[in-house]
């Protein structure tokens, strides 16, 4: 397959993630969206690494993105759980105590 096919998938995934972050009110969907953007970047790294044909930097980056995403989810879910315990909601617009 050509490089363009991989980039196409990656851009589509990135766009879906962006839409997910912007349109959804529920914070869990926002976190899904962030994961999708990170995975879109992973596809880019793997594809560019293969087609640039040299070194392992891109593939190493993919491994680290997976670790990053896991660490971020762990902390995010802990924070969201705490918010849910305190406010019984996981929608940022409803949990709004800080003044504008």
């Amino acid at each position: 397959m050509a490089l363009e096919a991989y980039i196409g998938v990656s851009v589509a995934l990135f766009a879906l993630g962006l839409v997910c972050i912007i349109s959804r009110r529920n914070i869990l969907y926002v976190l899904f969206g962030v994961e999708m953007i990170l995975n879109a970047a992973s596809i880019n790294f793997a594809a560019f690494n293969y087609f640039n044909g040299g070194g392992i930097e891109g593939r190493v980056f993919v491994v680290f993105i997976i670790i990053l995403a896991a660490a971020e989810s762990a902390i995010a879910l802990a924070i969201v759980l705490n918010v849910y315990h305190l406010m019984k909601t996981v929608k940022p617009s409803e949990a709004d105590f800080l003044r504008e």
Partner: protein
Amino acid sequence: MQDIHLTGFGLLSPELVLGAVSLVVLIMDLVWKERGSSRLGWISLAGLALSSFLLILAFDDSVGQTAFGIVVVDKFGNFFKLFTCGALAVVVAFVMGDQRERKDRIGEYYFLLLGAGMGIFFMVGTNNLLLLVLGLELLSLASYALAGFHKGEKRSAEAAMKYIVFGGFSAGIMVYGISLLYGLTGTLDLQVMAGTAEGVGLTRSLADAVMTSPSTVALAMVMILGGFAFKISVAPFHFWAPDVYEGSPTPVTTFLAVASKAAGFGALIRFLAVLFMSPDVAAAVGTYGLQVGHLIAILAAVTMTLGNLAAVRQDSVKRMLAYSSVAHAGYVLVALVAMNGEGLQASMLYLVAYYLMNLGAFGVLIYFHGQTGKETYESLNGLGRAAPLISISAVVFVVSLTGLPPTVGFYGKLAVASAAMGVQDGAYAWLVLLMLLNSVVSLYYYMRVAKHLFLRDSDGQTVRPQPAMAALLVVFAALNVIFLLYVEPLEKWTAASMDLLLIGR
């Protein structure tokens, strides 16, 4: 530079010390299980002191690369590492002196702070975008947890939630931008991209990429700069700052406003300097009639104006300081429009001034918040008589934040203005003028603090003395004045730090 493999591991000793101490703190917290003791705080301070000692010891001669060339040790990085150690030490002292801080499991607090510090160390000490992202994320993840440290408090929980949503989003965008840049150049090393070092395998310099596919490069740069803009709270990525700063525990706010922001600037300055100050890339960008300086100028203008105008409307001193820190990010950017050695040095000088005045201002806030339980301007009424020494220090800090003599804030603004005026026959004069206008606006809300402290009648508030905190604040106030009269060491230090930023050039 001769020794790029693991044999140069000694260069990493400050980072290793910080990591070891953070683990010691975490384990001793579990072993001792005690409340209200400051032993763990002292261990953290000792670790930070040892780390700074190693940095100062090696400031002049430890230059090189290690861990297969990924970690770069140079004076520029050491400057920001020392800055971080200093800021962390003061934040740890604030935690120890904060009357409102929770006392159980306090070891986690220090552990997270030291972990964030280690993230900063790696972030400012690398030319490799992978390590840059990892350092940035280590800092961010620790900051998210710190923002929500008061688990039972709704405000703290909400601050953490907002922080991780915006932070995760901007980190994702930044990583995607880096993936595009990697695709264009075939490397993650900034120096290879800039064409100042030899790469492995098939690589291409950024200058070539700018010539062949300018729009992709522009997109990648906007995405990466977005990630930096989030960290340093520059418009339009500053929306998280007021809410997170207000909801977080105040020592954490101090950390975010000073150490985390300076780290963002350190990484941003290295990124811009290595890439866009290299002649090839600058020439390639120039063929399109563009300059990176123009983009920075616009961001700076918007950021400082928005920050200042919003700060005027606040009733809470903490929230006012949050907006003011957004405005100060704009002032630092003003120095960066120059995109030359003088501009970078001015931005570093300003950051040192910012360190002195902002740590002091937040310290005063913690001191009075511990006494009154409130953070509004009204809660300061008449405290000038109850706590004269602290109140006079507070006035010094706000004068310094405004940028008036006789304080180091004045010198910082002067350096920034002269750096921005010095390029292209004063093409950025409008920006400097805008900065002056903004300073006038900021005078209003900073002086409100002094007004409430000294000119309003007290509602019978008494102040319990806290000698340690008071001494720290008075020392900071004195430093604010001393460094204006005796500015030479600061100038020498920042100039020396500049020397080796352009390593390998």
